[in-house]
Structure formats: C-alpha cells, structure tokens
C-alpha cells in the first residue's frame, strides 16, 4: 500500500517537472472550402503532396502550389471545415506504414486499419510516390507467376515483374480472375496486395471473406477506398498499395498487386483535377492522366540479383463500356502494360468462364517466363485454337464439311471446353499441364463436350491417386520429359477406359 504522503510527494514531483513546452507549427488559413477541396492562404513553405492537418483532425494533401495559396484535397469529411480555420503543416510527405504488420490487414489509403483488428504496429513508413527502379536495377521477366487458371497460364502467361492488364465490360469476371490469382499464391511465397478503388464496401467485404476462407488473407493486404469516400483518397489508393508492395520487393520478395480498377481511379483523378481547375483534355481528363498511370505501373519490376531479385507483378483492371477498348483510359493502360487479358461478354454468356478471348489477349513478355512443361503443351494449344477459330467462322457458311475439318472443329470444341474453369478453383501447374496435354493430343475427342468439366475434375483426382509420380515429376523438374510423357499417356488411357 502506498500512503497518502507518498502520493502527495509523487504529485508534487509531477507538478514540479510538468513540461510546459510550446507547440510550434506552420499554419495557413482556409479561404475557401467545398467539394473536398480547400484553398488555403499561407503555408508558404508547404511541399507538394505534403500532408496537412485541419482543426478537427482531418487530413489533407497539398496538390496545387500557387503564388499566395495552396490547393488541398481533403481526405475526409469536409463538412466541419470552415472558412478561416487554421491548417497545420505536418512536414510529412504522404506515406503509409509498410512491413509485415500490414499483412492480413484491411487498410485505407492512409494506412489506417479499417478491419477492427487493432492498430498497425509498424515503425517503418514509405512515401506513396517513389521513382520506379531504373534500367540497371532491373532484369528481364523470367519466372512464371501461376494464376492457377488454365486459359491464362497456358495462353497468356504472366511472369513475375510483369504488368498484365485485365480488361472487359462490367460483370465479365475481371475481379474473379484477380482473386483466383491471389488465392493461388498460397504457399508460393508471394505477397499479395489487393487495392480496391471505389468499389462497393459490400463487394470488398465479400472479397475479404473469400480470402479468409481460402487462407489467403495471411499473405494479403487489402487497401480499400469505397465509393462513398472522397476522390482524393481514391486517387492515392493505388500509390499507397504500391508503396507497401515496394517495401517487400526491395526486401527481395515477390509481390502480386491488383489495382481494381484503374477506370475509377482515373475518374477520381479527373474529379480532383477539375475541382483544382486544372485544364481538362480529352474526355475531360487532365493532361497528366497518362503519366499518372505510367508512373504507377512503371513501379512494377523484376529487380536485378544485386538488388535482391524481388519483384512486383501488377494486374491492373480496366472496365470498358460495351467492349470499347479504343476509349481514352483503356488505350492508355493497354499501351503501358505488357499485355492484356481481354474478357468478352458474349463468351461469358456462352458459358465460357473465365470469359477470356484468347484470340486478342496477349502477353508480351510472359512466354519467356513459362515453364518448359507448360510451353510444350501451350504451343500446340495456341496453334490449334487459332485454326479452330478460323474454321469455326467458315463452317457457319458451309453445309457439309469434310472429315478432317469436322475433326478439327471437334478438337477445338473440346479444347475450348477444357479451358472452362470454375471460380475459386485454381489448379497447380502440373495438373494444368496434364489436362492440357490430354486435350491437345486428342484424348478427349471421343467424349461429348458437355462432359469436359467432369472429365477434368475426375481425371485430376485419378492422376493424384493412381499416378502421383507423374505430377510430382512435372512439378519438380518443371518439364515434360519423354519418359513422363509416356507415363502420362498411359495414365490418360487408363482413365479413359473407365470414364
């Protein structure tokens, strides 16, 4: 027990040593506020993209530096901010917490947790805008990043450090591909960052639940800014996510980052720019909209071995209107990225899901990152599918077809059906190779097209049970040797007898 005298003594001591320091700050005065933009007089020494603080604790980011005033985007509710309010400089350029502490968390673009799992204990911060790695710091893309989706891994392969655009109309399964890709990174030592820009909060909540259900949340960070939040927050969200990814990349790790989606990001930036009275250009987007996305996507890289060999693979998503890829933002991002996965409405409703249009989707660098095993089946698949598409167009006009043509059409049907894959069911590379091998070699021609899904499902199970050495060897050697090929053929024939 502590007695009254001691307490008095402690209090006396506390009063005597009570720090009476003064707070020094640089301030400005709000002269105009509205639409989440404040014009502030003063703040002469403010830096571009510096964070400032409004009286009620709301943050702002300095965007326009003018002769007498600065234009500030308010990142929070602007209803409590009045003309004449004091605005304090923080001296901090916009930055976010990085490191292991953010993994498994859902945060806003300022790095503040929004998942109710307590504060983020990180003493490392990284500014949201950083220069991209230079030419010397990079090396070419050479390792595959498996998405677990047969159509993509075989035909539009993605390599670590690549930027592959996912583009399509609304409701064609763009997000589904990105989510599958993230779930497939489980146990592959790849850190994932999912940046949701202007999405419905309910959608993001269900994405998070999906991740948790599949054990993907432990290596994933969700950066979320919902549709209801100010445009400035939406604008910095992908940069914040990229800063978190960069930290891991420079630590020598592989990161997969999904920007879902950059169309809304561009719209948010357009909103901020117009409110700041920057001159509008095509479709009212500001002049630097291309630079906005190019500097973001340039930060995706495969670092050289001297730099640790880490990588950021970026999967930006773009939503098109009625399949129009020649609109401003889609063409911009197509030209920035290393290829695109094009999703078609028509295919989606034909039941070909993922609705990847393999004819016009490309990957400009990914094929050099494909495993030998996958390459050996993908080449044939690509060629056959191309011929099939050509024939399919012709056969609509012709009444009777010769046998060879019929056979080729049949093969094409089967291959297209085999590329159909249910959502949230990513497949390891060795299974993909085995299935595609069977399809390209014509082992499926004898079965009806509507049984393909069943075939794939049961065959993979069968292979794992009866011939585990086949998949194990493909996985370990990453190649399809003649010996393994023979075993695989034997396995397929064995299975087909009982199907």
């Amino acid at each position: 027990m502590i007695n009254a005298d001691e307490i008095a003594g402690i209090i006396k001591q506390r009063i005597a040593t009570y720090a009476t320091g003064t707070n020094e700050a640089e301030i400005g005065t709000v002269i105009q506020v509205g639409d989440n933009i404040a014009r502030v007089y003063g703040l002469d020494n403010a830096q571009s993209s510096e964070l400032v603080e409004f009286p009620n604790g709301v943050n702002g980011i300095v965007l326009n530096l003018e002769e007498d005033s600065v234009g500030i985007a308010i990142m929070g509710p602007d209803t409590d901010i009045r003309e004449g309010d004091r605005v304090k400089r923080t001296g901090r350029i916009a930055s976010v917490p990085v490191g292991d502490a953010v993994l498994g968390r859902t945060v806003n673009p300022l790095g503040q947790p929004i998942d109710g799992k307590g504060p983020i204990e990180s003493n490392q911060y990284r500014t949201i805008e950083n220069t991209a790695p230079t030419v010397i710091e990079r090396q070419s893309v050479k390792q595959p990043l498996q998405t677990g989706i047969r159509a993509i891994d075989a035909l539009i392969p993605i390599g670590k450090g690549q930027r592959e655009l996912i583009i399509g109309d609304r409701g064609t399964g763009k997000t589904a591909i990105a989510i599958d890709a993230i779930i497939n990174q489980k146990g592959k030592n790849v850190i994932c960052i999912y940046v949701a820009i202007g999405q419905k909060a309910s959608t993001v909540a269900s994405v998070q639940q999906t991740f948790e259900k599949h054990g993907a949340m432990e290596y994933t960070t969700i950066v979320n800014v919902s549709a209801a939040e100010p445009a400035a927050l939406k604008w910095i969200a992908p940069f914040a996510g990229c800063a978190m990814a960069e930290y891991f990349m420079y630590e020598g790790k592989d990161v997969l980052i999904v920007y879902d989606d950059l169309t809304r990001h561009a719209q948010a930036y357009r909103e901020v720019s117009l409110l700041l009275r920057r001159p509008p250009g095509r479709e009212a987007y500001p002049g630097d909209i291309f630079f906005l996305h190019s500097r973001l996507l340039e930060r995706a890289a495969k670092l050289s071995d001297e730099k640790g060999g880490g990588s950021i693979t970026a999967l930006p998503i773009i939503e098109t209107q009625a399949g129009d890829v020649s609109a401003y933002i889609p063409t911009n991002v197509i030209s920035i990225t290393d290829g695109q996965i094009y999703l078609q409405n028509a295919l989606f409703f034909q039941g070909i899901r993922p609705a990847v249009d393999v004819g016009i989707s490309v990957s400009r660098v990914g094929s050099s990152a494909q495993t030998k095993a996958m390459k050996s089946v993908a080449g044939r698949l690509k060629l056959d599918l191309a011929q099939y598409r050509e024939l399919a167009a012709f056969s609509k006009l012709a009444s009777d077809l010769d046998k060879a043509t019929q056979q080729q059409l049949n093969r094409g049907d089967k291959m297209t059906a085999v590329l159909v894959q249910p959502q949230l069911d990513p497949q390891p590379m060795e299974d993909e190779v085995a299935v595609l091998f069977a399809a390209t070699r014509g082992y499926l021609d004898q079965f009806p097209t509507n049984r393909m899904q069943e075939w794939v499902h049961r065959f993979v199970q069968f292979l794992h049970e009866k011939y585990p050495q086949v998949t194990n060897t493909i996985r370990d050697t990453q190649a399809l040797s003649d010996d393994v090929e023979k075993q695989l053929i034997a396995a397929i024939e064995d299975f087909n007898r009982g199907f």
Partner: protein
Amino acid sequence: MPNETLARRYATAVFDLAHEANSIATVQHDLHTFVDALAADESVRKFFRSPVVDRKEKEEIVARAFDKLDPIALHTILLLIRKRREALAEELVVQFDDLERAARGSQKLRITSARQLPQAEVDQIVARLAAAFNTKYDVTQAVDPGLIGGVRITMGDKLADGTIAGRLDDIARLLSTN
C-alpha cells in the same frame, strides 16, 4: 470571392505610386477611411458593391462623397469601380498594409491569451521574439478565454502554441489515434 493575388497587383501599383509621391501614410489612412466607411454602413457597402448601379453614376457619387481623400486613394477606388473590381477593395487594403509593413521591415504578430496580459508582459514577449528573429513587430492582442491558460503567438505563417487548450487538443489526438 476575395482574390488576394489580384488584390496584390492593385496594391503593389498603388503602393509604388504612393511611395513615389511620398504619401504612403496619407494614402494608407485614406484607404482605411474608405473601407471603414463601407464596413460602418451596410447600405453604403451594398451600393458600392452592387453591379446593378451604373458605373458612371457610381463614380460620380463616390467622387463627390469622398472628395476629401488623397487623389491617389480616390483614383484607386474609382479605378476599381471602372474595372468592376469593387469586391477587391477590402483585400486591397489588407495587401497594402502588408506591403507597407514589409517596407518598414516589420512583421505582423498576434498574441492571443486567455485573459488580458499586462503591457509589461507583452513587451517582454515582443522584445524576446524581436531579439530571436531580428525583426520588428506590429503587435495585435486578443483575448480568448477558451485557451484556458498560456499564450498563442502567430507570426505570419508560424504558430507557437503554449496554451493549455492546445495541449489538451494534443492529448485528445494522441488518445484517439492510438
């Protein structure tokens, strides 16, 4: 919308002119007289600001009413009317004061405290600051009981907050962030 950049252009011109004529003090005084007159009477202000009143008419009336003003000050006001920049008048005076203060090598200093400070204490604060920053100050004093205790000093863009209210604010923020 007050446009300080635009007002500064006018203020700089007027200040240069007054400087050449060696009548800065008179011009400043007369400009203040005019702005005070606007502030004192709502109907005068409305008349002066109104875009509906014919410019010629407005010029004549203002010229007659303020004929005692220094010609530079009067002409400035008439020019504002002719250019339809009546809304700049108040800001122009603020900017003019800033220029005049800068010319004297002085700075604005505002001391806010919870209760009225004795003059000796104010002088002491100003003397300390003047020595530290090597500038002269135009001091204004304000009382704000909401500060509870201590003083808050504002010099241009800089703020030194030694008040209890400021500290409580910091504690509140610290508690709410962590």
